[in-house]
């Protein structure tokens, strides 16, 4: 690993910029995300900045169940983020639908079937420390080049892998 790569790897670990999307949450998880920026949890210590546009971000925080209408929005946010990128699913809803499962407008699938999720932060809602921990974990994966987006890009660059698989 050259020096430049090493600096870039550290920079990716130390500078996770996040953006949020509420995919149909009851707002509970979003209320737990807001304190991350307050003096008590101060996410800026580890370099977190919250940005409004996915184009400036590295980590997408998804909270809430997937609904018929939010599916396209989540996909669009994911597509707009420049690589390398990571996804952190907040709360129990993105994985299972939680208590909203089988509601008419709620999709009965996990977030993983739409975008590649790197870190799951379970809880209903999870505590701010846990969300912060999830962001740190995602940032570590970004630094190591081990997010699912980065792994997929690496595999795509090695055509011999496909032969082995088939």
């Amino acid at each position, binding site marked *: 690993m050259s020096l430049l790569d090493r600096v870039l790897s550290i*920079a990716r670990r*130390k500078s996770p910029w996040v953006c949020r999307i509420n995919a149909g949450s009851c707002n509970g998880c979003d209320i737990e995300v807001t304190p991350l920026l307050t003096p008590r949890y101060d996410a800026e210590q580890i370099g977190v900045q919250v940005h409004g546009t996915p184009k*400036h971000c590295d980590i997408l925080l998804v909270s809430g169940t997937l609904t018929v209408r939010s599916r396209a929005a989540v996909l669009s946010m994911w597509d707009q983020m420049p690589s390398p990128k990571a996804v952190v699913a907040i709360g129990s809803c993105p994985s299972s639908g939680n208590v909203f499962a089988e509601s008419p407008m709620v999709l009965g699938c996990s977030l993983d079937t739409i975008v590649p999720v790197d870190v799951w932060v379970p809880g209903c809602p999870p505590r701010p420390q846990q969300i912060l921990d999830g962001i740190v974990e995602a940032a570590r994966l970004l630094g190591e080049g081990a997010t699912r987006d980065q792994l997929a890009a690496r595999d795509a660059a090695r055509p011999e892998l496909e032969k082995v698989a088939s």
Partner: protein
Amino acid sequence: MTPFLAYALAFLVWPGLLVAAPLAWFELWLMRKALAKLQGRRGPPLFQPFFDWVKLMGKRTVIPEGVPRAAFVALPVIALASIAAALVVMPVPGNPAPRLPGDVVLLLYLLEVPVLCEVLAGYVGRSVYGEVGAMREALMSLAYNLPFLASVIAMAEWAGSFDLRTLAAAPFGLVHVVAGAAFLLALPARLKSNPFSIANAEHEIVAGGLIEYSGPLLGLFELAHALEIVVLTELFVILFVPMPAAPLAALVVWVAVGLALLMGLTLLAATTARLRLAQAFRFYWVWGGAMSVAALAAGLAR
């Protein structure tokens, strides 16, 4: 040394990119740290702005569909190049660039180029939010440039020259205080910091004119903005602060005034909320206009 080599050295090393970029990151860190302290937080580590920038340079750039690619890519490069060229003109000790007659005029033009680039970037990106940000940026530049230009012109009048070194060496007078105050009035709006963070209003119009930018192109814009802080603090010290003759004392004054400026800006940003465009515009044309008249009058009265 040939003039070309001298200019290249000044552009790339001192007082240009290689020295000014770390200085800019340090100043950014100081402001962010001070803001965090004022809010009772710990704040980012020392290398945070550097890491942010390196990470941006290592990301992929998404160019939206239907934008003119050449303009989209050229704008941040032009913004950074012009602000680095503004650094070349600065009469700081050890600047290898040859003396230019009328460099004040050149400097004022170069300082306007990044603003123009950001306005164009907002329109080029085809985002509605970007267009709103660009419109605000253009209107704000009409507002804050009144006291800004008046303060520099008043100094030029006082020194009877458009040469930065002559301006810096001009005898201290009332004009230094009045024009310096007018300059300070324009400074927060020039740096888009809090009561006047109207053009880049985060969470209101998402991210202003740079909304469609990502990766290295965004990094270039951020670096240009950071260098703007360096240029403007340097310019304030050069124009309005009388320098002691001893080099060590001059360095102390330089650092002290720079620190005071940054802390003042941060304090202002931490304690105020964003104004509306019309309020800021009125503020600059009433109070900024009054300060401009006072500064020009003080420049004429010698």
